[in-house]
């Protein structure tokens, strides 16, 4: 009998719930150990042992691993594509080994990420599932992620207008609890119909004129609320409808760099790497929809997003839609972000007052009439 596995993986928003469930199904009899929730300590630990100039997600991941190892984890998972994220695994493993920890490290990146190789790796680690069962579990997890993303997308846009404070958050927690236990498509379907109804029936009071802000940027900083000082919550508390296209479903099913380059119009000719083209295409989409503004967030030193910035600046000028650029690092002060965010919301309110029909304020100045050719969900 092999040694009992204690499997852990880094945090990313609420995705630890479907991932934990998937790993539990793949490795029955072993322990799945999601790292403790991210706190200031996580980031401190991660930064202490990371290269100073690496992007912030690396530090968060490393902090997660260290806290998981402290709890007894002995198998760590990582993946990686695109930008520097593609090299996270190798470097993190080496740092942790140098610190003297004993563990197995599996990195599903590049060729290792091909489904058949992933299956073989998991089988070698002791998973009793046959390929069909494995595919079933994988499909179920993807469907669960898709549902989670859809409902969170709805919630983000509407939670600022809930009539009873906390009702949206409560419903969200219930959804997460339900997704923890799902083990068949039938169950997932029930959860879907129950919660879709519940979310759409959430009592809302939306004023006739309200402000809409789109979020674009690097995937980790967008999806892990701790790393952006709960920006979405802050905006919702100010009564702003928040839209964010980037999520795991988008990365898995919606992302198409060629399409993004096309729908970013003339603002991009070449791919700036990772999700840079998506940031521009999505901002273009928000501009065409007449959004009041876009917030572009990235971790400090994120090269693809840095490459996309000049295009975003031209887009902002042409469409007369303000784009706020925020950069997050382990040293970023929350007060500084607060000041910039307050000024941004003041600004979009004042800008709206300028035109009688506020909804049209961003339209009519477009350099070209391009309907964004994307399959982004309609906000």
């Amino acid at each position, binding site marked *: 009998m092999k040694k009992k596995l204690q499997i852990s993986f880094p945090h990313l928003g609420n995705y630890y719930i479907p991932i934990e469930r998937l790993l539990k199904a793949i490795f029955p009899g072993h322990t799945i150990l999601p790292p403790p929730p991210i*706190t200031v300590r996580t980031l401190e630990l991660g930064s202490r042992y990371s290269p100073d100039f690496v992007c912030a997600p690396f530090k968060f991941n490393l902090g997660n691993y260290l806290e998981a190892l402290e709890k007894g984890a002995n198998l760590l998972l990582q993946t990686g594509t695109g930008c520097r994220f593609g090299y996270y695994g190798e470097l993190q493993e080496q740092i942790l080994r140098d610190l003297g920890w004993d563990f197995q490290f599996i990195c599903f990146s590049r060729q290792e990420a091909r489904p058949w190789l992933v299956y073989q790796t998991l089988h070698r680690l002791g998973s009793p599932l046959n390929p069909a069962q494995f595919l079933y579990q994988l499909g179920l997890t993807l469907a669960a992620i898709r549902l989670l993303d859809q409902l969170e997308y709805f919630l983000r846009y509407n939670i600022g207008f809930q009539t009873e404070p906390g009702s949206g958050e409560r419903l969200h927690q219930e959804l997460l609890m339900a997704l923890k236990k799902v083990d068949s498509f039938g169950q997932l379907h029930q959860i879907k119909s129950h919660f879709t109804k519940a979310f759409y029936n959430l009592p809302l009071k939306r004023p006739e004129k309200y402000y809409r802000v789109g979020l674009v940027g690097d995937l980790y900083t967008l999806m892990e609320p701790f790393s952006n000082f709960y920006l979405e919550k802050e905006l919702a508390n100010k009564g702003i409808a928040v839209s964010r296209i980037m999520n795991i479903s988008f990365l898995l099913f919606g992302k198409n760099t060629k399409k993004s380059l096309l729908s970013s119009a003339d603002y991009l000719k070449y791919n700036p790497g990772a999700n840079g083209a998506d940031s521009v295409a999505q901002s273009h989409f928000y501009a065409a929809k007449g959004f009041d503004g876009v917030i572009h967030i990235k971790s400090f030193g994120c090269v693809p997003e840095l490459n996309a910035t000049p295009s975003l*600046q031209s887009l902002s000028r042409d469409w007369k839609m303000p784009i706020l650029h925020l*950069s997050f*690092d382990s040293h970023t002060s929350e007060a500084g972000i*607060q*000041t*910039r965010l307050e000024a941004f919301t*003041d*600004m979009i309110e*004042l800008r709206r007052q300028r035109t009688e029909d506020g909804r049209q304020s961003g339209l009519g100045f477009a350099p070209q009439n391009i309907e964004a050719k994307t399959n982004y969900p309609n906000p």
Partner: protein
Amino acid sequence: MDQVAYLGIDTGSISTKGVVIDQGRQILALDYLWTRANPIAAVKELLNSLEDQLDQDITILSVGTTGSARKLIGAMTGAQVVKNEITAHAVGTLSQYPEVRTIVEIGGQDSKIILIEDGIVTDYAMNSLCAAGTGAFLSSQAERLGVDLEDIGILALQAENPVKLAARCTVFAESDLIHKAQSGHKKEDLLAGLCSAVAGNYLNNVGKGKKIDPPVIFQGGVSKNIGVTKALEEALGHPVQVDANSHLMGALGAAILAMNSEKEEDFKFEIGRLDFDTKSKECGGCPNNCELVGFYKNGDLLDLWGNRCPNGTIQR
């Protein structure tokens, strides 16, 4: 009837500014003093000074605060309006220069650019991670060269062959400055190089990608430095205006915002003589260890912040 007035306080990292205005936005009293890392003491001093400048029968109807200590001072003075620096500066400047298109602001620790179209803020930016090219940098370099901060600008204008300094980063600029000094350049030339470095740094960082249209208004502490103003004019290719009260625009904006808020509550200058205190401690409720700051007036808890979850509220 008593004359009514409105108070605006701008508490920055380096200096504290305050103005009292009447309903016609005319300044009745003003003061400007160093914060010295103690905003509460600075504001007390400020309030006492403003009170001395005013007639007895003036009633302050509302208070606005801005600057990095706006929250603290807002709680202290019971302010009706607590606004970020960007909005306050824009409102203050627009009241004096309705036609302004670009506000350039370089303060002690931060710098910003505000773009305005038809009297509406359309875009803005602030310096990101580092405080390169702000007042703090100028003040430390003045000390190195043995020059009073106030004299930098005038001396810089006398330069015949200004040196070129690497402006990207304060640390590079500083080592460049030392190198130039050690190779025998004149002090005036060094100072002129320093002023150009500050202007260049600003345009390359904060002003990057922004379209800077005239009229340009330059404010913040560094605007008092004629050398930097000239360097900005040269780099931009159009005139840069500096108001005599350029350092007070934030406070003025806060006062105007307070006036426009239409929330009124009599303000008493006695606050300047009360006892205020802050106590901070780490929450300890979870590994997040939020830093909780309690704000006390004469020993009573007035406000508490820094808390992120219900664990911290219990410890009030």
